[in-house]
């Protein structure tokens, strides 16, 4: 994202322009709805949403979804990371996983959600499992690519210094794969949000996915819109989380940007 905004702007001025942008959008939205007299089922105005949505439900649903998202995100990434590390170090394991990667990439996890529901039954577990699975495969594949993509000359350097495989792994392969981990985290974050919400939509329970379904059935559009905005906010939150992780995982690159 940083490639697209002026890197000379400080964080404070970024927040400032974001706030101004948001306020402008809200104003335009309100004015458009009022001016065109749009019916509520097409587009409720911001005032309608604020006053009529059931905010208590929205907030508690957001909290529930956020919980599943974060747990799923952590579990899926840790599992993908560990499996990639294991696979990269064992020729047999990587020989098995490599050919599978196209298939693994193609399995639509979202489509597996119905299957998983039959296996695990309804409940919070399913939302976390789907969230974790959505995150697991991209991280596994990206980390595998990252761990194998160490430059030849870097590996030769390790041989000249007579480094053991373990040393080579810790000193070189692992740090060199961090940029790949970060880019898979960037993909994983919104995917986790979508995965969890899809699972909630199918399974029921207390999350935002469920709320969207319920409020659309009960024709409570302000609430539905509020849930939509809340879900976008959650996605934004995950994005911020990944940016923080990025600074932590690849500090030597972040400094340049």
């Amino acid at each position: 994202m940083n490639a697209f905004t002026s890197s000379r702007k400080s964080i404070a001025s970024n927040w400032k322009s974001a706030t101004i942008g948001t306020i402008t959008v809200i104003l335009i939205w309100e004015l458009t709805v009022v001016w065109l007299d749009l019916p509520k089922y097409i587009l409720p105005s911001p005032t309608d949403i604020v006053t009529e949505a059931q905010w208590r439900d929205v907030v508690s649903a957001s909290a529930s979804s956020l919980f599943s998202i974060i747990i799923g995100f952590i579990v899926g990434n840790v599992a993908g990371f560990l499996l990639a590390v294991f696979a990269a170090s064992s020729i047999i394991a990587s020989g098995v996983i490599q050919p599978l990667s196209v298939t693994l990439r193609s399995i639509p996890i979202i489509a597996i959600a119905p299957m998983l529901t039959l296996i695990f039954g309804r409940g919070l577990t399913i939302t976390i499992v789907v969230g974790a699975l959505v995150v697991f495969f991209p991280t596994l594949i990206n980390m595998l690519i990252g761990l194998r993509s160490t430059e030849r000359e870097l590996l030769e350097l390790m041989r000249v210094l007579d480094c053991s495989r373990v040393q080579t792994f810790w000193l070189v392969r692992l740090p060199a794969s961090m940029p790949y981990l970060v880019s898979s985290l960037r993909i994983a974050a919104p995917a986790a949000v979508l995965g969890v919400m899809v699972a909630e939509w199918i399974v029921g329970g207390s999350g935002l996915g469920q709320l969207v379904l319920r409020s659309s059935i009960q024709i409570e559009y302000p609430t539905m819109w509020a849930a939509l905005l809340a879900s976008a906010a959650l996605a934004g939150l995950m994005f911020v989380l990944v940016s923080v992780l990025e600074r932590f995982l690849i500090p030597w690159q972040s400094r340049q940007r």
Partner: protein
Amino acid sequence: MINRIEVRDVEVSYPSDSGGFTALSGVSLTIEQGEFATLIGPSGCGKSTLLRVIADLLIPTHGTVTVFGESSQQARKARRFGFVFQDPVLLPWRSALSNVCLPLRVAGQSKAQARKRASELLNLVGLKGFEQNLPATLSGGMARRVAIARALTLNPSVLMLDEPFNGLDEIRRQNLNEELQRLWMEFQSTAVLVTHNVSEAVFLSDRVYVMGKDPGRIIAEVHVNLPRPRTSDMLHEPAFLEIVKNLSVTLLSAYALEDL
């Protein structure tokens, strides 16, 4: 104690479904201790391959290499080689100092010891004050100096350089050549350089091996009897230019062996 590097009848070939490829064939040479030897030749003549065979980064399909009495593998495990690659190959997440510390830490030295020695070396290559810089903030020439400093940390018996100054302009290249000569004389190590720059080869070496390709082999040996230490003034002296001319002619014949 044998005071030389001996390469005997080395062959490196890669079999493949379509017939195979021979990178080196019947290569033999001897490098005396303390000598500066250079391998020069057209692309694909196997000079980098030969360098890697000596350093035990590649195992030849045939032939032997002994380095001061040890096999090349023993020498590598005893960390007798300092290798400078074509690309500086600095770890981007470590500072310059930390990069130079790497061999010392791998060899088991304490952090404090390593840092002390590393900063001495950075000072030696003229990079005092840049210890905390990340590679991304170093210029090409500076990164190469860090790479050289790193290669020297363990007092290697043999300094191997694979086209280390490619892509630099003439002035910087000459500067680094003089630095390299100074360091080589100070450390009294044996050096093996791969380059395709004739002037650089003559400036630095005691002996230049000209290689040809298809298959890769040595086609000529040129002695450079100029006095040491060599300076940039010498670059324009008749004696220097004469040797450059000889070497160029020999090199040209290596190119003529293939269709240019």
